[in-house]
């Protein structure tokens, strides 16, 4: 369970998130909101990429920013900015290096995560030659190989075509770990357990996807 207590974020004196207080324990949580409403800032608080200016973020008792990072995996919108190594297997090994695992354990974990998503054939490919869909799957694999407690995804499907979007979301749906998905694509969130609507740095709607999404859509039509 992750808990935000009176969390505010300011940048250059501009308030971006204001007094967010929320407890999240559902397995599938969606986040919606207009451009610039503060969704990405909110998402980046989960794993400490962003530090609160005030308030605390607590995941299962852990509040320290660097410790949060250990437990929460983060998938960015653009996999090109997330993949840091030239070869797929090297990239997957990147985070594991910090765990100081023995070599064969590292390799075993990489093979396992690749097998899980049917990506074994990409193991030795150059990352910059992958298709957009393959890249996003590799980015997700790079996060899962760390065995995070939960996973936050910031608009992970915007750069994908219809097919890859379906495939990617099917992979997300199959995960056992709790996930938080920021998305402008309301279709993706319809079957989620809970949806947060962020407006102007505050939570403007919160609950089952049906009513929250309906109100969000209605709000856009005036």
């Amino acid at each position, binding site marked *: 369970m992750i808990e935000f207590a009176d969390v505010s974020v300011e940048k250059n004196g501009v308030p971006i998130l204001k007094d967010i207080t929320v407890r999240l324990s559902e397995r599938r949580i969606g986040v919606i909101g207009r451009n610039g409403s503060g969704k990405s800032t909110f998402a*980046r608080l989960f*794993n400490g*990429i962003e530090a609160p200016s005030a308030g605390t973020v607590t995941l299962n008792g852990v509040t320290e920013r*660097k410790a949060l990072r250990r437990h929460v*995996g983060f998938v960015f919108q653009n996999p090109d900015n*997330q993949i840091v190594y030239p070869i797929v297997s*090297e990239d997957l090994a990147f*985070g594991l290096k910090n765990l100081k695992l023995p070599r064969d354990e590292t390799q075993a974990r990489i093979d396992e995560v690749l097998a899980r998503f049917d990506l074994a054939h990409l193991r030795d490919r150059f*990352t*910059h030659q992958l298709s957009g869909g393959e890249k996003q799957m590799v980015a997700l694999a790079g996060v899962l190989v760390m065995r995070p407690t939960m996973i936050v995804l910031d608009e992970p499907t915007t750069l994908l075509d219809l097919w890859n979007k379906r495939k990617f979301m099917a992979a997300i749906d199959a995960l056992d770990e709790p996930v938080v998905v920021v998305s402008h694509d309301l279709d993706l969130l319809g079957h989620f357990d809970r949806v947060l609507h962020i407006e102007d740095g505050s939570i403007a709607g919160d609950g089952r996807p049906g009513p929250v999404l309906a109100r969000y859509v209605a709000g856009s039509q005036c």
Partner: protein
Amino acid sequence: MLTDLYVFGDSPLHRTRPVVKITALVVFCSTLFIVEGWASVLVAGALVVTGFAVAGLKPRHAFVSVRPALWILAAIFAVQAYLTDVVFAGFVVARFVVLILAAALVTLTTRTSEFVDGILSALTYAPAWVPKEQIALAISLCLRFIPLVRAVLEDVRQAQSARGLDRNLTALLVPLVVRTLKTADEVSQAVYSRSFD
């Protein structure tokens, strides 16, 4: 990924460790400057030619390596011939050619990845104040992002050519630099969130 200048082969030169080849190259070049004269250039030249033969490299490879310097070498020859004499001019130019070919011999018989591995394993012996992980990360990131930055450049060029600005370097460089800096910011967030130190 990025193609290097390596020429495939299985000669003793190809199999020698990169660090040995680099050390030999440094000794070779310094000697050529310390022991000046036609004699040393001829001996060195013979060594280089033997090296090319042993490595199975063709005259074409030698020519391609020297070609970029050809004009400037011709100019140096002319200046030296005018200032001193033809024999000395020939010596200076011949020394350049031998130096460049010796370097080419190392470059053409060593994969870039072997050098990178060499650098990385040398780093494990480096003293504690050397930021080893960061150096390794910088090299990998650069190799990873060269194709991406090239793609961005091509992208920007097409966008600007639609506005008739494709010969305007400022209009190309500003978006290239700003986009790359933004990318860098997100990449560093990703590196941060994927590592634990």
